[in-house]
């Protein structure tokens, strides 16, 4: 078979093998690559960094284990930043298969940073119909969440004293892999005017640049790259920084395959035209 035709028809098992190797090898031979911080991630970092001690932020996390590789490092970095600045966190989740995961992650970082439940952070848990819950939280958090995830009435948690709704918080940062981001923009930010930042998967990020451009959102942490940037800003490289090496090689390999496929396609087409 003609060489250029052959390179357009690689067996898919070869592609799978090369992708597999480009994931495994950077794990075995760690190469630290420099991560450049983008303005949209720095905006989120700065907004949290400028908050006075004791401020409260709302941190709705709507993702499940399928997108955890991208969003868990993001949540970890944001939580570490908040807890180190003594910023208190109201966590919640409107994605049914992600609630247990988010609760475990929140508890893990709080434990690492020596934070106390009820005083430094709380977890409201899950309620269905995010749009409705977002709107009702604007009236009073207790309307949708009279009790927290563990069944404790909100009024008995020290952190929630004198905290009624978004007006008593400084920022809403949603870490989200669902269309829930749109709900936060439409039913949350537009209705109640709170500052909103978002952390989304890389594939979703492009959809929200228009909101960033119009000033409706403070900043975007996009995908694993955004999480790695945030880790760089807090000075603690972790899962995302390690993941960037893998992602770098996988992206490079995919691009090489696309280029090889196209070189083969163009040369074959040229030859066919020459024969005609």
């Amino acid at each position, binding site marked *: 078979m003609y060489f250029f035709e052959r390179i357009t028809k690689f067996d898919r098992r070869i592609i799978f093998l090369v992708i597999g190797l480009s994931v495994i090898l950077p794990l075995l031979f760690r190469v630290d*690559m420099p991560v450049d911080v983008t303005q949209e991630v720095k905006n989120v970092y700065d907004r949290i960094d400028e908050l006075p001690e004791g401020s409260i932020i709302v941190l709705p996390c709507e993702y499940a284990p*399928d997108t955890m590789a991208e969003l868990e490092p993001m949540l970890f970095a944001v939580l570490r930043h908040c807890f180190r600045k003594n910023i208190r966190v109201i966590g919640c989740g409107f994605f049914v298969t992600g609630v247990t995961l988010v609760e475990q992650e929140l508890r893990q970082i709080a434990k690492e940073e020596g934070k106390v439940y009820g005083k430094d952070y709380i977890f409201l848990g899950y*309620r269905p119909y995010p749009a409705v819950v977002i709107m009702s939280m604007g009236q009073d958090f207790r309307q949708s969440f009279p009790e927290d995830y*563990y069944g404790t009435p909100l009024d008995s948690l020290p952190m929630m004293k004198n905290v009624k709704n978004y007006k008593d918080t400084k920022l809403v940062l949603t870490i989200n892999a669902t269309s829930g981001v749109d709900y936060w923009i439409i039913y949350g930010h537009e209705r109640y005017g709170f500052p909103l930042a978002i952390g989304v998967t890389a594939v979703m*990020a492009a959809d929200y640049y*228009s909101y960033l451009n119009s000033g409706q959102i403070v900043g975007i942490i996009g995908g694993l790259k955004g999480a790695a940037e945030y880790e760089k800003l807090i000075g603690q490289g972790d899962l995302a920084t390690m993941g960037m090496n893998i992602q770098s090689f996988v992206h490079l390999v995919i691009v090489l395959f696309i280029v090889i*496929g196209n070189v083969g396609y163009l040369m074959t087409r040229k030859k066919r035209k020459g024969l005609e």
Partner: protein
Amino acid sequence: MKRQLPIAITFILGFVLTLQYFIPHRSFEIVYEVTNIWLQIIGFFAMILGILSLVMLHWDKIQYKKTNWGYSIVTLVSLVGITLVGVIGTEESPAFNWLYNYILAPISATMFALLAFFIASAAYRAFRARTIIATILLLAAIIVMMGRVPIGSIISFGIFPKLSDILLNYPNVAAKRAILMGVGLGAAATGLKVMLGIERSYMGSD
């Protein structure tokens, strides 16, 4: 009456809730608060309907041994099993967390991880510069893919990230904004049609 009553309710609620958005008066705030509570109650009943519909659909498949009826057994057993574990145990129940951590989480993470392999294979086969438009799409994809990873910055001396930012901030925003405006106007028009009873498909056919 069967038709007029839903149309009347839709019109009144639609009209009042649209109005309250523009009138910052306490009475309208109360209307808003009350409807928010109603929405949650209605949502709860909708969930019951959803579960009943799911059970009936899969029960029917099992009863008449329709195609892939075995999967319906898995669905129903999972539905009942996880509900019982969740209801009987507490939310911190080890059994519930075990099911979550060792069954649900690995299954969904594995399914998503497989995508990388299929996307690579599909991109290699389908991403071809067949036309000018396809070539532009291909180049944009390569620039953004390489611009979003550190290695792209290293091999291009920082050019890929800059080009990627330009693509995301200008052509992407322009196109997305136009789409959003279209969607917004379309949604407003459809909302108006529903309120005025012109669009009645939500009531189902008789």
